[in-house]
């Protein structure tokens, strides 16, 4: 446990030092989306006012997904690179799985912080715009943000260990892009009923559960997925990515 906490401390200190850059990297996207879709387009009457309420939790989940994936993927790429910095950590008195899990926790903290900064930032940007119905229930929000962080970081662990670094550009374009567009960030999953059975295909996307979790805790008045369903979805995806990522990590570091 000592080694685990020391490793976590090291990762958080290093991440904190690059804090400003990380913050800019994770917050640029949601802030620009809010400016365009939450401010400009509604004033031009090109989107409905309700859209602003719908997209706030969605943008939080996107921000967390990006932060969680980057928070694990980028350090992992350096760790596993030719210089093998990871070896020093593997040689610490901790199991290989412990090292992998530490990476996930560090990434989850990164994601949670990003999500919790994104929310007030968006609300601030839209505070003079009418029709925004954001009522965060903090008691529910905080544990769900933590769960979203773990899911995002576990996903990052799987991507970071199973995808070769030279394909990571492709990863963002081909995997994360579609995940974000079809992740129920800009529309509630419940309203997809109009698509018929296709609605359930969306459940293959882990971001859907994160968006719905945020929807539940930030805009409770907007229809959302049943709590049991979204908790189950997040748990299943987190576990699957954790196991898959940790196994791949072990194969990468122990020859």
């Amino acid at each position, binding site marked *: 446990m*000592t*080694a685990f906490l*020391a*490793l976590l*401390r*090291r990762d958080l200190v*290093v991440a904190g*030092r690059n804090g400003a850059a990380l913050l800019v990297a994770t917050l640029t996207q949601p802030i620009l989306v809010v400016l365009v879709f939450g401010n400009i387009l509604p004033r031009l009457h090109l989107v409905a006012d309700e859209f602003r309420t719908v997209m706030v939790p969605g943008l939080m989940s996107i921000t967390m997904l990006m932060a969680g994936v980057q928070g694990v993927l980028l350090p992992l790429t*350096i760790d596993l690179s*030719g*210089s*093998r*910095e990871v*070896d*020093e*950590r*593997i*040689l*610490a*008195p*901790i*199991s290989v799985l412990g090292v992998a899990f530490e990476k996930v926790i560090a990434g989850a903290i990164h994601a949670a912080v990003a999500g919790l900064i994104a929310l007030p930032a968006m609300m601030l940007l839209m505070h003079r715009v009418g029709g925004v119905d954001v009522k965060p229930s903090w008691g529910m929000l905080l544990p769900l943000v933590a769960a979203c962080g773990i899911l995002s970081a576990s996903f990052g662990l799987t991507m970071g260990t199973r995808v070769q670094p030279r394909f990571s550009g492709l990863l963002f374009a081909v995997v994360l892009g579609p995940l974000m567009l079809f992740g129920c960030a800009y529309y509630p999953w419940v309203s997809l009923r109009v698509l018929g059975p296709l609605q359930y295909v969306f459940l293959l996307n882990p971001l859907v559960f994160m968006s719905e979790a945020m929807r539940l805790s930030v805009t409770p008045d907007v229809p959302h997925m049943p709590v049991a369903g979204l908790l189950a979805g997040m748990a299943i995806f987190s576990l699957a990515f954790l196991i898959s990522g940790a196994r791949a990590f072990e194969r990468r*570091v*122990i*020859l």
Partner: protein
Amino acid sequence: MAPLLVVEDLRKTYPGTRKTPPVEAVRGISFSVEAGETFGLLGPNGAGKSTTLGCITSLVRPSAGRVLVDGVDAGRDPSRVKRLIAVVPQTRNLDRDLTVRDILVYHARYFGLSADEREARADRLLAEMQLQDKAGAKPATLSGGMQQRAMIARALMHDPRVLLLDEPTTGLDPQARRALWDTLRGLQQRGLTIILTTHYMEEADQLCRRLAIIDHGTILTLDTPAALKRSLPGGHILDVWVRSGKPVAPQLEALPGVVRLEKVAAAADGSSDWLERLRLFVDPGNGLLDRVLQSVREAGGDLDHVSLTQPSLEDVYIHLTGKELRE
């Protein structure tokens, strides 16, 4: 007293891929190292040295065999073994996001040292490795020799019983290499058990009390450097370059006092003569040099170059493997 490190019939086969066959890197290596001893694994690249070291540090999972450090099985209880050992890897893997001092302090944190101990040891080791001036620098700004010393300082932070160094001087200039040897000698005098791999004969000769020469995943021989050199037939080596119209090796091999002859190189040069380099393992008494000279003359040749030397480890190596140490 039981040895501090025991390696028993270690084997490692790396699985192949669709395009490459499996690689049998280590094929049954056994040795043991006493506390306080410096033990060397000498061999060319690809001989299995690093894989053997990796199995000891649990970074490589052996296919068979076992490793005991102070009686603890590395396969069963790697966390306990990691506290007993420290590793200076071949690739310089200092944490690029931390300063040299922080690298040492964080390493100590991983091992659960108290704050006072962390700071005191970091100061002591920075001084010992002459890195005080670089305490606040990032590793990327350090020279190769300094990085190597920083990795040794890092390794010593948790006060290991065994220090493993994988090709510690590869890539260092001669001056830095010698400085590192001095550092390692200092650690030897303090009683630290050291295991190092190298492909430099001189390094093995200078530092190791015993060494194993390994190639193709097996130990060819294992003894003290002096005993290895004594084991060569004849006890001396006569290196001759002969220029002649035809090969002279058969005549030389038949001379009394020549125990063994190895052809090192032969080439026909521009003037249609043979230039042969021969290594003769000889017992040099009783006018041997005269006989060699006479024999070459009788064959119509010239001695281009002659040297009589004490055998070096390189000679032992070439004698055992029949080839020069490949880089």
